[in-house]
């Protein structure tokens, strides 16, 4: 039988912050990751749990100060259905649509994907490519951490134990194109073998502000600086695609695991990047 750890359900953020001062609490949002851990089969179940589900302050999607703000408790279904996400950040809706299936998308949350910090978290490369930042809150106040600084090591984040992920801020000034691609064993219910997001702004036939981010190829979601360097200021031509694909294949250092092999991940990362460039270049 699963371990039924004691749980407290705060109704307001200050109440939640007060509880989180005691570091033995593990937060639960939609539960799609944590409920698998309470079986005790994957290590020690949490000692005490704080249920975030009633914190309506963490819901909602809105535009504010030139940014798209997505609350931490927004589910993947809400993200898929959001007209604002569809207009301003369709890549995030695409990523949400590849996670689990309806049952998971109805419960799993963006904040959970961020805090759970799996290197295979499918929305995380989108956050990196979009230059998103993550707003953390605690009794000490709020602070913003750039996505690129958030995942610090395998399953480790910049979040302190007394902090909650409140929302994600996606700046919209440059209105870049973002492409998303996930490769898994099947279209639904699959943990990714490789997941990629690529962002760029077209400027007189060449690409500017290029970001290439991947999941499942390192201990954390990562950006690939050398590959971005190949694409920055370049046009999406075949020679550029060949060079970028060869670069990314060398730049990443994935591992063999139950889902895939390092060789496959390297090879398929190059292929995905090549295909995105071909599609964007129209050749």
């Amino acid at each position, binding site marked *: *039988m*699963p*371990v*039924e*750890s*004691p*749980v407290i*359900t705060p109704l307001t953020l200050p109440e939640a912050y007060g509880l989180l001062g005691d570091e033995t609490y593990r937060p*639960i949002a*939609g*539960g*799609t990751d944590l*409920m*698998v851990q*309470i*079986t005790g089969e994957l290590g020690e179940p949490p000692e005490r*749990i704080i*249920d975030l*589900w009633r914190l309506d302050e963490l819901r909602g999607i809105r535009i504010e100060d030139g940014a798209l703000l997505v609350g931490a408790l927004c589910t993947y*279904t809400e993200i898929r259905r959001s007209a604002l996400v569809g207009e301003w950040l369709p890549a995030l809706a695409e990523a949400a649509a590849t996670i*689990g*299936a*309806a*049952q*998971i998308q*109805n*419960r799993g949350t963006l904040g959970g994907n961020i805090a759970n910090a799996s290197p295979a978290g499918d929305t995380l490369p989108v956050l990196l490519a979009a230059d998103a930042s993550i707003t953390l809150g605690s009794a000490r106040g709020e602070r913003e951490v750039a996505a690129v600084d958030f995942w610090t090591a395998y399953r480790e984040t910049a979040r302190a134990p007394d902090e909650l992920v409140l929302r994600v801020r996606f700046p919209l000034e440059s209105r870049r194109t973002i492409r998303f691609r996930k490769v898994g064993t099947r*279209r*639904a*219910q699959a943990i990714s073998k490789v997941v990629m997001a690529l962002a760029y702004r077209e400027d007189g036939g060449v690409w500017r502000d290029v970001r290439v981010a991947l999941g499942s190829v390192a201990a954390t979601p990562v950006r690939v600086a050398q590959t971005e360097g190949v694409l920055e200021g370049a046009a999406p031509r075949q020679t550029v695609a060949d060079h970028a694909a060869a670069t990314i294949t060398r730049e990443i250092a994935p591992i063999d695991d139950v889902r895939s092999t390092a060789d496959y991940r390297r090879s398929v990362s190059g292929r995905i990047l090549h295909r995105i460039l071909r599609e964007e270049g129209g050749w």
Partner: protein
Amino acid sequence: MVQGYRFTLNGAAVELKVPGMRRLLDALREDLGLTGTKEGCGEGECGACSVLVDGAVVDACLVPVCQVDGSDVRTVEGMADSATGALSPLQQSFLDLGGAQCGICTPGMLMAARAYLDQGGEPTDEGIREAIAGNLCRCTGYTKIIEAIAATADGPAGG
């Protein structure tokens, strides 16, 4: 830590005094005696424990009871007409078109299909396949399940 939780279950009010982290699946099967909802994998992969919470299909193995406090919960037991026992059109369609073999996935399939149809889902192969993508069936090739759902979506009575 036992607390009281209230929700509606297939239209009737229930109150449970159980630990808040009890899986909704265990509360339904062990505390409330509704064993129509099946446990397959227990980790959100197979969909056998699918139920509706406020109209949305979820895996009951991944939802703690504390999170359904105040919600509307529907299980396969609530599908047939409670007065006459007549099967719902969706259940009848599964029966008529052979949409079940061993039956373990069937309650979950029905609930996922129910959610899809209630949200106005079209009887298209693509739409239905996505709607039941979180429900594994190890007996059939899914074809008859999809046909049964499509036939209900097409039917005049709806789901």
